[in-house]
């Protein structure tokens, strides 16, 4: 059982990461990653929706018929997104001023429906919740990384305005990486999102290939005695 959860975690966070491997959810990814804080906020909001939608859809998977499953899932996901939207507006209003425009974009994130179809509709509630949580954290990791790279190159800061998202206690995270930086506007604008995403996907591929090669090298000597 715990083995299954470990596999789900590894798959979600790295091997089958929503952004870096499945290349899904590009609309929110490009729209919000102009800073690390925005990426983190959007990632966490998406994680909340993914966790809830996966668990609810898994719980009703035996009632929902094949024919109408897509509209049922979409309505549930849209409802959850709206709930997150009004909750943030009411109880974290400063954050809403930063993220408000983008929360509704979570509905357009095909990764949420994708996980409902690919995992939650076929698995029990707990593994589905785990899948939603981990996929969401993988998404958060990807968005925060893209946001951090764009923010550092584009504005010379890191986690600017983090206190709006996490409270005053986290203002220590707000760093000025490059003092007196004039800014590199391209990185903040949409083309920067595509550039950074492209380089990060390439970097992930390189890391994966190196790991695979090392695994082959490590496996070879052990394989020889068996062969002889």
């Amino acid at each position: 059982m715990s083995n299954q959860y470990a596999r789900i975690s590894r798959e979600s966070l790295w091997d089958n990461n929503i952004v870096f491997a499945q290349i899904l959810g590009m609309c929110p990814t490009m729209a919000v990653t102009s800073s690390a804080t925005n990426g983190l906020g959007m990632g966490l909001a998406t994680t909340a929706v993914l966790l809830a939608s996966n668990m609810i859809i898994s719980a009703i998977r035996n009632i929902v018929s094949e024919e109408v499953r897509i509209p049922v899932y979409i309505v549930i996901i849209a409802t959850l997104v709206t709930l997150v939207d009004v909750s943030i507006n009411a109880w974290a209003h400063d954050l809403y001023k930063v993220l408000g425009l983008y929360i509704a974009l979570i509905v357009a994130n095909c990764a949420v429906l994708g996980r409902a179809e690919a995992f939650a509709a076929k698995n029990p509630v707990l593994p589905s919740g785990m899948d939603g949580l981990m996929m969401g954290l993988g998404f958060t990791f990807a968005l925060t990384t893209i946001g951090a790279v764009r923010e550092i190159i584009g504005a010379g800061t890191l986690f600017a305005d983090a206190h709006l998202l996490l409270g005053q206690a986290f203002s220590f995270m707000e760093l000025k990486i490059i003092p007196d930086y004039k800014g590199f506007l391209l990185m903040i604008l949409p083309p920067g999102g595509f550039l950074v995403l492209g380089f990060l996907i390439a970097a992930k591929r390189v890391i994966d290939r190196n790991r695979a090669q090392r695994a082959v090298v490590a496996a070879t000597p052990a394989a020889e005695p068996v062969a002889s």
Partner: protein
Amino acid sequence: MKLEQLRGSLAYQGFLLGGTALLTTAALALAARATDADIHAAEARDMKQSFAVVLTGQYDNDLLKDTLTLNGPNGEVTVYRARKAGQVEALVYKVSGNGYAGAVDCIMGIDRTGKITGVRVIKHRETPGLGDKIEAAKSRWIFAFEGKYLGDPPADKWGVKKDGGVFDQFAGATITPRGVVKAVKGGLEFFEKNRAQLLDGSAPLGGATHE
């Protein structure tokens, strides 16, 4: 009948979709009720903060409850009146200009003599790094309006320098500041046109004209 058999029938699909819609709508209605008061409170807090920024001096009334609705250049304008001992001392209202990427909404404060006490951009979609210098957090540009009125500079100088006016434009962005200057000028003209009505504090405190 077993669930598997039932699930295939046509009526089941209808009930399933209807049931889903009913439950989700109920959840949304509950959430809307639960958050409505907090959202309004938060928005009122925001408004009060922006009032404090564009007004100078002390006032003794609740601006949110002392409003006047007049016809402005772009439809109705809700004017918030700041009073001291009953007399209208200053006014706050929203003006809107056309930027490079849609409307630029500003809030402006004006005292009873017609002088601008402050202008802030509250909503815009201008290009980050170029047009967003209209934000007070990004540049000092918006403070150039403080103390100005129709006459200083004269009406034909109320424009960006490129158009023969006195206000700076930004390198690479003329349309955005031009839109803001035009909106503020429109706000001043609105004041001049309705001066008597705006400064007449006789309407009951508490804002009978406001819903």
